[in-house]
């Protein structure tokens, strides 16, 4: 086959333009926080496309809320590993000694009891909790918006993520500031008009109605505000992602 010089030059220019276009896109995506921490590996393309497009579409969108009469009569508590001795001790004391500590890139690291959190303005929403397996139920979730607590401790402007750690062994995760400051993101201590049952993560669970159930971790005991997830675990942003589960679960 004969390739003309003109064709060669044109395709060369097109290839260069395409490659530099991709490079610029990657740089811009990085700059505007559109690249998830688990973007490496063979599924990096998929998770990055999902995260970037949803961040562009849904930064301020609200999860669907339902009227009270649509609350599921029997919310299904998913399988829970046996509770630790530490947790049982706190449970025996009515969680009076349960603490949520906040550290990292904040002006005033602090520690909150459940009573402290309940003294903050209380909010609730009736939203669906959806598991990656396929099932879902609707419940009323009561708590304090995470943004309120972050405001109390004063987050540094360069903060990019909030890491949250559970009392369950090897259970931690993180969210970006768009989700951390989202009005429906709660530190949740109540459900359907009463205390949050232990089976559902009581006394304190993070509630992210725009993300899948496994991101809504139970027994939250520590928050760390950071600008870099590399220092946590293997650096991909969550214990789940180290086990092969995507960090961002808006899908």
């Amino acid at each position, binding site marked *: 086959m004969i390739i003309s010089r003109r064709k060669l030059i044109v395709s060369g220019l097109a290839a260069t333009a395409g490659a530099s276009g991709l490079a610029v896109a990657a740089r811009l995506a990085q700059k505007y926080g559109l690249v998830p921490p688990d973007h490496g590996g*063979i*599924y990096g*393309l*998929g*998770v990055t*496309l*999902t995260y970037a497009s*949803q961040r562009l*579409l*849904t930064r301020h*969108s*609200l*999860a*669907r809320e*339902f009227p009270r009469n*649509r609350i*599921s009569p*029997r*919310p*299904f508590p*998913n*399988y829970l590993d046996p509770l630790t001795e530490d947790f049982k001790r706190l449970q025996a004391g009515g969680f009076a000694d349960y603490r949520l500590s906040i550290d990292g890139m904040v002006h005033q690291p602090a520690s909150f009891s459940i009573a402290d959190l309940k003294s903050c303005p209380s909010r609730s929403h009736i939203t*669906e909790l*959806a*598991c*990656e*397996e*396929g*099932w*879902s*139920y*609707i419940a009323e979730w009561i708590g304090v918006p995470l943004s309120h607590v972050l405001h109390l401790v004063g987050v540094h402007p360069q903060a990019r993520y909030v890491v949250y750690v559970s009392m369950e062994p090897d259970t931690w995760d993180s969210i970006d500031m768009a989700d951390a400051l989202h009005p429906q993101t709660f530190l949740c201590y109540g459900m359907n008009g009463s205390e949050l049952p232990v089976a559902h993560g009581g006394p304190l669970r993070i509630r992210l*109605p*725009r*993300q*899948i159930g496994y991101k809504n971790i139970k027994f939250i005991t520590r928050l760390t505000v950071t600008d870099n997830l590399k220092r946590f675990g293997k650096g991909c942003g969550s214990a*789940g992602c180290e*086990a*092969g*589960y*995507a960090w961002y*679960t*808006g*899908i």
Partner: protein
Amino acid sequence: MATSGSAQVPVEAFSSRVSTAPVTNLAPRHSALVRVTHWITTLCFFALLVSGIEIVISHPRFYWGETGTVLTTPLFQLPIPSSRRLVPTGYGYVLPDENGWSRALHFEAAWIAVLTGLLYVISGLLTRHFRKDLVPSKPDLSWRALLTSFAKPLRFERPSATEASSYNGLQRLTYLFVIFVLFPLVIWSGLAMSLGFASAFPWSVTLLGGRQSARTIHFFVSLALVLFLFVHVLMVCLAGFWSRTGAMITGRTGTGKEHA
């Protein structure tokens, strides 16, 4: 390329066309873009199928409406074991959890399939591929023509060389249905299950009757696509597997030796 290939075309039209056609047909049966997008879609389809089955195994129960858990009555349950111990299946064992990579593969393959599909549809509109090759002509749509195209493969009759150079009415309708009904529906019902997407476009879930309805619809449309795949491959085998597959790889219909 032939503009119509139904059994209703008069014989004279065939002979005149055949006589003008060279022995080795150099005009591509399928354009390069159709061929490339076809095989990318094929790869994605298998990735989506395998990962989709894995995901269903973690909760082989289906519901209608907004919600559904093992505590509520399902619409139906697949008689298979599950990869989750809290799902009552009647089997005494629990399969290993494969949802991590399954979900990642499912969404990555979905992205590639959707982008490929967009490229195909846009170029198909611009090059008039749909109008030329897929929109059936009036005679193609007569009951007799449709019945003939339906009955022929049932009698294991191979299509003639002329028939093999374009699609009959039934094929055209089927392809259009798959491209413009089944694929959009499977994408829509899939996106409706995305909590992020649903927060931006709540109607995408409510129009389908709720999150669990979307999941059930996603399952049935996927089944329909698998059924299409079976019939599609069966027809390819009937028409001559290597010549048809070769046409979709190289674009050439070959020397026609299979039909000689």
